[in-house]
């Protein structure tokens, strides 16, 4: 049942509609945040249950999506230990020998993916919020409930780590504009 001006939607209908309309966007967000399919799937499901497992109605699709995105992020950060474990074995699942690079773009893309997978949870979260969600540093700080200085440090560390990993650019050459 769609929500009308005077008729609040049942939460079950909002869940269903949210999954239909915004499911792919949510899974994509979770995938970028977490870096792997299984964690992304868990994150989305857990975030939806967290959001709708509360005794309240009145969510619109837009407000529910905002809650779910927030829950995805916090759940991901809470699972830092789990992500760390994944990071340690992430390289085992890569197939660098089989990825013969047909062109420089593809090679860069693979390298970036590889380096992104190795970032710490908060570094990765900051990077995704900055470059995918297009949030400014202050907005990231508010979202993560940390200081702007901490966000800049995470971004700087993340970019430096990626630059070192890519072995092709210094930290000052990689994402120097934090907004």
């Amino acid at each position, binding site marked *: 049942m769609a*929500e009308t001006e*005077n*008729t*609040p*939607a*049942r*939460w*079950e209908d909002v*869940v*269903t509609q949210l*999954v239909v309309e915004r*499911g*792919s966007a*949510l*899974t*994509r967000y*979770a*995938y*970028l945040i977490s870096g792997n*399919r299984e964690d*992304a*799937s868990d994150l*989305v*499901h857990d975030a*939806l*249950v967290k959001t*709708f*497992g*509360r*005794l*309240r*109605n*009145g969510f619109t699709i837009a407000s529910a999506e905002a809650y779910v995105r927030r829950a995805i992020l916090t759940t991901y950060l809470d699972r830092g230990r789990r992500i760390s474990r994944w990071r340690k074995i992430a390289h085992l699942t890569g197939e660098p020998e089989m990825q013969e690079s047909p062109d420089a773009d593809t090679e*860069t*893309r693979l*390298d*970036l*993916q590889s380096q*992104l997978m190795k970032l710490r949870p908060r570094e990765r979260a900051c*990077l*995704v919020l900055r*470059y*995918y969600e297009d949030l400014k540093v202050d907005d990231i700080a508010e979202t993560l409930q940390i200081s702007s200085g901490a966000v800049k440090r995470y971004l700087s560390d993340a970019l430096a780590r*990626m*630059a070192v990993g*890519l072995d*092709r*650019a210094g930290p000052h*050459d*990689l*994402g*120097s*504009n934090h907004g």
Partner: protein
Amino acid sequence: MADDSDIRSHLVDAETPAIEIDTDAIISRSKARRRPRQFAVGAVGVLAAASLVFAGVNTFPRTGDLTAASIMAEESSTSADSDAGADTAESYRAPDQEAIAETCGAIIPSTAASPYGLALELDLPGPVTASGSAFGTVRLTNTSDAAVTGTTAAVPDVNLTRDSVSISHSPDAQILSVIPVNLQPGQSIEFAVSLAIYDCTTIDTGGMVEPGIYTASTSLAFVPSDPEVGEAAEVRSSPSTIVLQ
């Protein structure tokens, strides 16, 4: 060379594996999460929870009208007392669900109560949508000629009522804390409150609240510091009209 735009385009263009969302499972898990749950905690856990409670909470007597916060605080400390030294597990009902279960459908008194000269006012500025949340303040004022010292629950109870029956209540979470109050004549303190608008009596069928005119009121348990002054009492506001759009 990878730069800002490379990172941005990588994130934007990255292929995302197909991830199926199981809506039925989500709804099922959400429903389960909404039901009252039983938590088993060890005596150490109970003691740890009780240690967070302000010492004065032990003076909160159990009455049918006290706030959920004070009731839960007392229950925790009572459990701690009775189980001190025991190493067996103890289970108790999740406080948030219990508080809701106790209040949902209850008859809320329609008259104000101002023990010890304490008056309670609820302000929920509109507009409030029937499908949303109301945000406002509760002000506790000492209207007497003497200073009033004691403790209150950290968060006032707020009830949305229809025909004097509570259909929505806050807080909906466990709050095991009380705050000290020392109000000189005319002084007041303010609490920020919020109230999710839903009908708890029909929650299993969606809990929708029709737009219209309702009433809202607030209450707060107060315990004087000096037992000789008196015992715990409930401060209660008079019902105020709230229009849900």
